[in-house]
């Protein structure tokens, strides 16, 4: 690994009041990698995403994107630099159409100002068409699931699985280098879970994204990850291939308790 990692966290710590949510976390993701973050609830995984995307600011440590510190930047600035995410609890623009959700996310990469928009200049209209075309392209990535006629429907009319796909499409529209997927398979049945695994693989192989995934479903983690990072109580306990991490007694203990770790 000669090149510097795309994303790097060095000694990041964050506390809320007296509660240490993340402590001395070191993490790196190389370009083109798919890294999974696992850990029991409360381990600090979503907080990790919030730190990277600028919603929280770390008390200590540094976060680097392409070797440039992004600590203290506004979330939309961090997004412009190449970090896009989905949300654990789904945060779509429900009353906007499917297509509009994706088009909206193209804001940062476009530049038609208010004056040109109000006057509807040819340049602005060209840009609008381009935004629309790209949005449809992103949506087409999901094949038959998010088909044409769905694009005009309001987002709230989508099924749960489709909503998750839409959120990913929306994240893609911001033109990122790295995708942070927060529990993309949550609440899905086995067929859908399988599709998600395939989708993540395609996101890397076809679309070239670097991906950092939080996931609980070990089938998914096993199927997609180059590397797995296990967190517990805000501390990284183990890092490595899936086999190494899954069988590590510290990980077992974190999930199942000491007795399970010992008897395993």
């Amino acid at each position, binding site marked *: 690994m000669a090149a510097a990692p795309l994303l790097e966290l060095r000694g990041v710590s964050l506390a809320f009041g007296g509660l240490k949510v993340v402590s001395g976390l070191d993490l790196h993701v190389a370009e083109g990698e798919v890294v999974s973050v696992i850990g029991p609830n409360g381990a600090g995984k979503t907080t990790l995403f919030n730190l990277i995307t600028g919603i929280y600011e770390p008390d200590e440590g540094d976060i680097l994107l392409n070797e440039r510190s992004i600590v203290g930047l506004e979330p939309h600035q961090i997004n412009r630099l190449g970090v896009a995410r989905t949300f654990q609890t789904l945060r779509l623009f429900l009353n*906007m159409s499917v297509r*509009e959700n994706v088009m*909206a*996310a193209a804001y940062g990469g*476009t530049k038609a100002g208010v004056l040109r*928009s*109000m006057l509807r200049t040819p340049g602005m209209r060209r840009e609008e068409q381009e935004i629309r075309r790209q949005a449809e392209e992103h949506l087409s990535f999901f094949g*038959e699931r998010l088909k044409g006629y769905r694009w005009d429907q309001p987002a709230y009319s989508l099924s749960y699985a489709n909503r998750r796909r839409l959120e990913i499409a929306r994240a893609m529209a911001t033109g990122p280098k790295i995708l942070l997927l927060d529990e993309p398979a949550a609440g899905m049945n*086995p067929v859908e879970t399988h599709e998600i695994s395939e989708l993540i693989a395609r996101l890397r192989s076809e679309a070239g994204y670097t991906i950092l995934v939080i996931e609980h479903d070990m089938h998914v983690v096993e199927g997609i990850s180059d590397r797995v990072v296990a967190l517990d109580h805000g501390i990284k306990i183990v890092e490595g291939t899936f086999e190494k991490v899954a069988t590590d007694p510290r990980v077992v203990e974190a999930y199942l308790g000491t007795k399970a770790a010992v008897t395993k």
Partner: protein
Amino acid sequence: MSQPEDLQEPSGPAIGQDEWVARHGERRSRRSGWIGDIEERARRAPWWAWLVLFVAAFALLPLVSHDGYVRRVAFETALYMTLALGLNIVVGWGGLLDLGYVAFYAIGAYGYAMLSSPQFGIHLPTVVTVPLMVVVGAIAGFLVGLPSRRLIGDYLAIVTLFFLQITQTVLVNGDQIAGHDLTGGANGIINVDPFHLFGHDIAVQHEGVFAVAYLYIAIAFFAVVYVALHFLNDSRTGRAWRSLREDALAAEAMGMPVNLLKLMAFSFGAATAAFTGTLFAAVQTSVFPLTFSFALVITVYTMVILGGQGSLAGVAVGAIVVNVMLEFLRDPGDARILIYVVGVLALAFAFGRTRKLAVLLAAVVIFGFVAHAVAEAINPDWVAGPAANGFDQALSNWVIIPTELANWVGPVSYIGLVCLALALTLMSPGWRYVVLVPTIYLGTFVWENVLLAQPDATRYIVLGVMLIGLMILRPNGLLGERRVEIV
């Protein structure tokens, strides 16, 4: 639980079948009958259809009516429509509760007045003043919006309201700022110039009647703003505003600079209000601080919410409905008949064309006559109140209108009506039906004897009740889309 590999992928979505299922939601939300047809037609109409409708209606009005009063009301309505468009940006698109909106209206009006009147001896040409005030308004909106970055919902509302208070205080006391008379104080600024366009001063009165020119200017203002805002809404900025309203955090995470967008919403709303303010000042030929009050804020808000926040055509319709209603309520004579018509229509809407409605109306009428007869028997003075014209005389045989009202009757009957009305919402449908009869009668009594005596208070009571009712029963208003919210 079988393994994923065992399950057969369906051979592909069944075209026509899946789509039919997917569109089920749309079909269900359609209302049946002719209302549904109209709504469907309205939804599919091109965006400019409404605008053409408005412009045509206002343009043709002077041909239909030569009454100066009617033209004046039409002018004011057009002003309100434009104001409502501006507020729609901040509230409907940005989701920001700006209670100080009217302060920007004041800034536009006072700015124009200060630059086109004897106050400072400056008489700038209209084509300079109006765009200048638009820019000033935009800057003011930007500055006021700056605190909004840190504030959410309730707090933002209060801060903007404080801004309105500060503006009013400055305007009222502005005749003594460091020894200078800047704003004319409580007496305002008078002798404001009319608009000067194409080399002519446009007089406000033409042959003793309100000048049609200003009506056309007002609707032109409206149309310009309407078109500009529609295009803006259909652009990346509009999408960003709507995303901000849906979920500000997600919008920020998707690269939209939420704080800047909020400022822009404030700015545009303020600029629109200031724009409208200049025209207001020119036609009024004077500006007074007390015009720009909280009551005006509530009025514009009712227009926006009734019409449907987020919909340009909607808020314009809301403005028309509310302003016309307020005009009717200004004069007891016109308002009287109106309330009965509205009341019957409301009941018809609620009950449908069923036997229940007929029985209810019959019961109310009979109840009324009985009560009237009883009251007359006890004391003739109780029903001998004044009646102006034919309809009123017929009515006065039904409603109890005393010659004189003892002090306590008004408050007691009013409070009684309010309590009854609230109690109605708690009853079971059966009881509700029965109690509705005396409630309606009491309502007419209160209307005739209490509410009509004070049209000012009555107008605002109606607005207040409308706001509460709209929020509870139909928050999306007339033309707004029904929204799905996750709280």
